[in-house]
């Protein structure tokens, strides 16, 4: 059974979709000749040539505009915005144009484009190369928002995103790029967007997260197991549409839920998870809370950044505190 790295999964998904559908094109800054600054696109340029895979000027407004306009006219562009922090520069095309087109055109056409972007902290990249800008985009009808946590999901969801007829923002967490996974099956699955996955079954508390946070939750669950707390871990995978059913189902079992977000508490997507839980499952709820970063920008210094991020220990500690359990009790 072969192992696959997260970044390879991205590349394979792109290669397979480029192969399958000639309307697919891939462009961005240094994605072609250089193979991407995070090494997610090597070989694509060589294989598919400069009409299908190309390097652009450092012009995010134009990149996004080109993606939008070409998608309206029959291509299925996949663009790379190197860091999620640069997404404000594509937001007008993505939010004001692409996401509204299907509805305001009275469904004359949809806009099948994918914006891939590397997000997340922990790499000592500082405040403006480390954000996870989910919440800038979560309240945008017409836009789908994918945030995978594993190589096989990344591949299947990226293929799903490319085949989706709607604009999709596809977030790749920098600290997952080197993650390896045994590939099960033939590796060409496609996952439609909008379904969560239960990563660990548990009965005492539900931990909900995405991307790197899912791994932190799984590690926290192991820590908690030794305290006799049996945590369920849900990987939302897609933040819009949000799999509300998965949240309700898990809550009906555990009655307690913490949403773990790599981002500030106020206004984050974790708040949406709590709101859905409160709105739809209040009778099932004994406790709902968020585990997030502090409310200030992401610091550079390793000591500051490590303390800033909600890692496994912090998650476990928060669960213990909220459940009134002392560490190592069991």
């Amino acid at each position, binding site marked *: 059974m072969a192992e696959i790295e997260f970044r390879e999964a991205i590349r394979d998904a792109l290669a397979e979709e480029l192969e399958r559908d000639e309307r697919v094109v891939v462009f961005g800054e240094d994605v072609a000749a250089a193979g991407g600054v995070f090494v997610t696109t090597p070989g694509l340029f060589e294989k598919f040539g400069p009409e299908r895979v190309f390097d652009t000027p450092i012009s995010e407004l134009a990149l996004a505009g080109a993606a939008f306009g070409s998608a309206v006219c029959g291509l299925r562009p996949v663009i790379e915005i190197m860091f999620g922090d640069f997404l404000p520069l594509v937001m007008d095309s993505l939010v*004001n144009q692409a996401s509204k087109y299907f509805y305001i055109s*009275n469904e004359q056409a949809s806009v099948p484009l994918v914006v891939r972007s590397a997000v997340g902290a922990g790499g000592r990249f500082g405040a403006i190369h480390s954000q996870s800008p989910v919440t800038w985009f979560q309240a945008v009808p017409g836009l789908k928002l994918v945030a995978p946590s594993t190589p096989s999901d990344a591949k299947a969801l990226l293929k799903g995103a490319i085949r989706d007829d709607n604009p999709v923002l596809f977030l790749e967490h920098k600290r997952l790029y080197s993650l390896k996974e045994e590939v099960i099956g033939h590796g060409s699955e496609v996952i439609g967007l909008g379904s969560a996955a239960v990563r660990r079954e548990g009965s005492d508390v539900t931990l909900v997260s995405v991307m790197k946070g899912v791994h932190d939750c799984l590690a926290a669950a192991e820590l908690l197991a030794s305290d006799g707390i049996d945590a369920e871990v849900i990987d939302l995978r897609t933040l819009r549409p949000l799999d509300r059913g998965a949240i309700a189902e898990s809550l009906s079992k555990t009655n307690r839920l913490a949403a773990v977000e790599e981002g500030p508490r106020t206004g984050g997507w974790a708040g949406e998870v709590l709101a859905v839980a409160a709105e739809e499952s209040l009778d099932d709820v004994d406790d709902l809370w968020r585990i997030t970063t502090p409310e200030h920008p992401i610091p550079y210094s390793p000591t500051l950044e490590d303390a800033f991020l909600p890692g496994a220990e912090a998650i476990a500690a928060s669960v213990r505190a909220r459940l009134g359990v002392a560490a190592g009790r069991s």
Partner: protein
Amino acid sequence: MTRAQAAKPSAVPDREEALELYRRMLIIRRFEDTVQDLFLKGQVHGTTHLYSGQEAVAVGVCSVLAENDRVAGTYRGHGHALALGVEPQGLLDELLGRATGVCGGRAGSMNVIDLEHRLIGCFGIVGGSIAAATGAALALKREGGVAVAFFGDGATNQGYFHECLNFARVFRLPAVYVCENNLYGEFTPYEQVTAGEIRARAETLDISSQTIDGNDVFGVQAAAREAVDRARAGEGPCFIEALTYRYVGHSRSDPGRYRKPGELDEWRARDPLIRAREAIGDTAEVDRAVEAQIAQVIENALAAPFPSPDPDAREFKDG
């Protein structure tokens, strides 16, 4: 820049084609008069930006486009739409928010989309049409199509302008960028906020560029033909600065106090319709036909149903 500087001898096409250009301009003019009327009567809602005075630009440019070409217009887009052959009926219905509008009443004046008629959209974000057409050109390159962006003088101060023109030049995209320089962005004279010459901005990016008299429909047609042919031939993007003028306020609430004394009259003297008529001669038949057509359109539009709220309106296109 004065009109004299920009003027080029323009080749008048044969009478039939000339009449057709005239007819399209007249439809736009009468349509806009109608919108203005209905607006004042409270039948057209929100805001509108009329194209009156600028008709020769859209009509001249669109007259040379082929079936696989595409156009991105602006919030001042009724002219762009009608020049492309969008049905006046569907367009007026849209402005009135009727179910029978080209976008079912969902879009309104600023955002009209009519793909069947090659209009990929009217863009309410200044510079948005430039971005959309640049992307369209990327797609159309494969099949020999050309994408046209219409936009104003003010839009040349947007980042989109610079980034997209550079992008188009670098990839030799088949795009024609048509700047309708009507001297003002909203209430502000363009010279006051625009460093240097507009055409030079495109030229500097090594884009084939010309400044033309935007009130001479035949001249516009000739310039557009040259540009579109070049773009289609794979020689990369072209830029046209068309000097023109809008007769009514920027949008409904604008009394036009910023206009220089006499300016409006001067431009009215070079009205694109009058000038076309001078070249063509008798247009009475077309005049009557358009009058009748628009009257019918208004009648139908006012009688059309409003859309019913759709509780299941879809956010996404289904799988």
